[in-house]
């Protein structure tokens, strides 16, 4: 059981390294980069979640207002109709938006399993520059044979630094 952390000077080097570590054989791979990786696929459940929350908020509050004015406490306000739907829209919109924002915010931390104040990668010195100017590749390996193979691969990639922790 060991973890390797290699640091590269550029995204291209990291991408080359990734090609050498196909995901099917190296399941416990993680990259750390100072800015989003360009080649990455974009899929994320969050936009859909935010849209759903927004819709829910909009219609939910619209019907709440409709209920309040027609059923809950029907007043004669300035001789206006009880179901004054145009007047309900601004608030419904604002609250729908609010729901979407909150959903996105909370959703992000759930999806990313944050907050996570400690991670084993923090132990490597190289990780300190992960959000500055280095692209990191972190490999977790259970078997000794895999470890030596990984070392072999890294040697060919000659990363700026390579650290290993048991």
């Amino acid at each position, binding site marked *: 059981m060991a973890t390797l952390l290699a640091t590269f000077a550029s995204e291209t080097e990291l991408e080359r390294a990734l090609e050498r570590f196909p995901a099917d054989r190296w399941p416990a791979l993680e990259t750390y980069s*100072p800015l989003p990786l360009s080649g990455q696929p974009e899929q994320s459940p969050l936009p859909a979640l935010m849209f759903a929350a927004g819709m829910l908020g909009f219609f939910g509050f619209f019907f709440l207002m409709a209920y309040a004015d027609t059923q809950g406490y029907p007043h004669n306000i300035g001789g206006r109709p009880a179901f004054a739907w145009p007047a309900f829209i601004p608030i419904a919109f604002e609250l729908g938006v609010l729901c979407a*924002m909150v959903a996105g915010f909370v959703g992000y931390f759930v999806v990313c399993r944050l907050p996570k104040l400690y991670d084993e990668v923090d132990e490597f010195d190289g990780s300190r520059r992960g959000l500055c100017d280095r692209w990191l590749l972190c490999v977790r390996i259970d078997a000794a044979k895999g470890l030596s193979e990984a070392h072999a691969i890294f040697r060919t990639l000659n990363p700026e630094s390579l650290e290993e922790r048991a």
Partner: protein
Amino acid sequence: MSNASETLRADAPVIGPNLNLESMTDRISRIALRERAHAWWWIAFIPSAALTLLLIVAIAYLFYEGIGIWGVNWPVMWGFAILCYVWWIAIASGGTIISALFFLVHAEWRTSINRIAESMMLFGAAAAGIYPVLHLGRPWLFYWLFFYPNTMTLWAQFRSPLLWDFWALFTYVFASVLFWYVGLLPDLASVRDRAERGLKQRMYAVFAMGFRGSSGQWRHLRAVYGVMAAIMTPVVISIHSIVGLDFAGAATTGWHVTQFPPFFVCGALLSGFAIVLLLIIPLRRFLNLEDMVTGRHIGVLAKLLLTSSLLLAYAYLMDAFSACYGGNPGDLALLAARLHGEYAPVYWGAVLFNVLLPQLLWSRKLRVHIPTLMLLSLGVVIGMWMERYLIVVTSLSRPTLVSAWGVFHPTFWDWATLAGTVGLFLSGILLSVRFVPVVAMHEMRALIVSAQARSE
């Protein structure tokens, strides 16, 4: 470190030539990690803090005595509280436009100034947010505007533009904070990684929530931030349109105008750009950001200032035109009072500062001439305040019923509260400059990387 006689070029690149990932990250983080603040910071902060204290005193006295301490009267029932609220919310909105709208259109000049714009949005909204509560005759009952189940099954009255405004403001402030924080996460992480062990590091670690730049964190962050930006843009338009509806929705002379919502948005843009200029011009010098905030940024903002002032000019024209076209005697009397009556100084002041002076920016040279820009922006800030004064106070002092015409005289406490909120805003900005990365580093990196790619 450049000197005052530096000449800016509007066609300069968005980042300086010798800027690389490490130096950029290093410089920005060091600003946040400084042990002791600069002298200029204290010089700016102490008076701001003093004004904030004044605000606290003013509020305490207000709650003790009642809003009689202000100049509001019959018929001018709305005074400084509302007009300053509108003024501040306009300033905040400008910040959101820069950070959200120009993010969506991938304007690269926005990158280095969006953090400052967002802080401005945050503390502008804070200064604005307290006013509606103070404005109430019985402020301790403000929560009656919420939807909440009570024993009398009473609900808020949803037809009131004031209630729309309450929720728009609530949403806007809340959403702004979330938007700002999400954009801030990676930079907090960067600072955390560069901080020495100790309290500071722990604080940044806590606020960074363990963001490490792993592929998943980046992917979801981009997704969320993109959608948030796409949402914030209509939100900022909506809050200002709804503020406009506070007035347009009323039957009052001078308010009952359909063009108010867009009119108010134009005003928001103008004052927003002006304040951003007022902030970045000194900050880029004090924080040595000349190679990140270049003449390009300033030139673009100057152009935007000019554009929005033209939009506002159109709104002014339409305002006068609709009064004449409508021919309502009340509206005409009000227009007369503004054009050549007792309110003429305020009206022409607003026209001068918001419309006429910004026309100087047609000149390419002046667009990057620091002193001119500072003065123009300051003028716009004052001019926008005058415009709010015109809308709120003068309209109310000239109701349709001539027997109810009145005059409004602000009191010391009106001014004290205004000064106090200015203090609150400045203190907020200064604190954020001191402890929060002033530039969005992870977005800057994209610029730097692409620049390097281009140079190779």
